[in-house]
């Protein structure tokens, strides 16, 4: 564990994240993986807002925030500058799902197409949380947000999650991975692998948000685990565009995951929406099929 003198961590306590915040944990784990020799380019978002109210920054490493859309472009400039100065700091971008999958796509696509030696970490809490839980391209199918609310004639978010890892792998990224704060060491190891893989690498880490999803603050890691155990989140690595090492699970029905979150309550009350639940189960089944994550009953019993 990379510790800063005086016992305080590279991502220090005193930040303003809600209690039980998934992204805050992701930030701590990220800096454990990078250590001090890193420069962080951050997007506007929950993490930026809860960690850097002037003059009280929680970041113990060089950190720069410019705009919502441009961490990848800023990082491109930093990487070019460091190369020219012969410096060794790793360059790591960090942005939420809104910044990464929606408004920042232009800059990320450019940076990845140019092949800069940067690592982009997306903390995916599946909606624009800082502004009050509005829908993003990463909001799951059927989830209610303030801009894709459930209603008498709406089942909530009508679109499935955008597959950003595949998009960036298609840019020729040498290493792309998904991770989850439910498996902190796995996330740390993937970050270490990414920052030591030359070229543009991407990790999308699942960081459940108690406030936005509607569950108890202590349940954050359980929720992340359940997402994986139901197949609605798959932890895998893609090396040069090919999937390797997807985490296998003996899958639980999606209902166990959905019923624990207010954003899905409309699928159960006032009346069950078995049709929508089935569609969500279909998404999980498709994930399982695509990534081959199901432990066969026989296999798991040995």
């Amino acid at each position, binding site marked *: 564990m990379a510790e800063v003198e005086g016992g305080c961590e590279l991502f220090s306590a*005193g930040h303003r994240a809600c*209690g039980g915040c998934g992204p805050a944990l992701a930030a701590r784990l990220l800096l454990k993986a990078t250590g001090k020799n890193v420069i962080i380019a951050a997007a506007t978002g929950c993490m930026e807002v809860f960690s850097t109210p*002037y003059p009280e920054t929680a970041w113990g490493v060089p950190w720069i925030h410019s705009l919502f859309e441009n961490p990848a472009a800023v990082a491109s400039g930093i990487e070019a500058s460091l190369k020219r100065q012969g410096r060794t700091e790793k360059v790591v971008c960090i942005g939420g799902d809104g910044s990464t999958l929606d408004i920042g796509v232009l800059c990320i696509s450019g940076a990845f197409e140019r092949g800069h030696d940067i690592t982009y970490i997306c903390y995916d809490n599946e909606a624009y949380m800082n502004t009050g839980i509005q829908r993003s391209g990463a909001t799951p199918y059927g989830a209610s947000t303030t801009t894709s609310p459930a209603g008498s004639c709406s089942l909530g978010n009508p679109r499935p999650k955008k597959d950003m890892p595949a998009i960036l792998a298609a840019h020729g990224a040498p290493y792309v991975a998904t991770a989850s704060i439910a498996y902190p060491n796995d996330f740390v190891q993937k970050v270490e692998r990414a920052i030591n893989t030359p070229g543009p690498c991407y990790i999308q880490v699942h960081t459940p948000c108690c406030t936005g999803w509607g569950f108890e603050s202590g349940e954050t890691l359980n929720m992340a685990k359940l997402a994986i155990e139901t197949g609605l989140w798959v932890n895998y690595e893609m090396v040069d565009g090919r999937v390797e090492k997807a985490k296998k699970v003996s899958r639980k029905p999606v209902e166990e995951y959905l019923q624990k979150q207010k954003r899905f309550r409309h699928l159960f009350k006032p009346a069950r929406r078995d049709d929508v639940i089935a569609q969500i189960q279909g998404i999980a089944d498709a994930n399982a099929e695509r990534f081959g994550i199901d432990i066969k009953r026989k296999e798991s019993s040995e």
Partner: protein
Amino acid sequence: MALRVGCVAAPGRALENKTGGWRVFKPVFDPENCTKCGMCAMVCPEGCVRETEEGTFEPDLDYCKGCGICVEICPKKGIRMEKEEK
């Protein structure tokens, strides 16, 4: 304290913002029931679970927001939440 040029700051001053006052419940660690696995320290979003001399762990109540993540992660269920007397 003069403003730094360009909205820039050195690290360290976040600690001035003690977030302990946020919690309603506080975690109580039972050292007898601790395997020293350190998971609670690893997953605390505040990074305020500290190792004691004995190798067991305890929360820094200046910063702990009482979220309860440590309670859920502890393999021995050695942490319980207690209403905070204010």
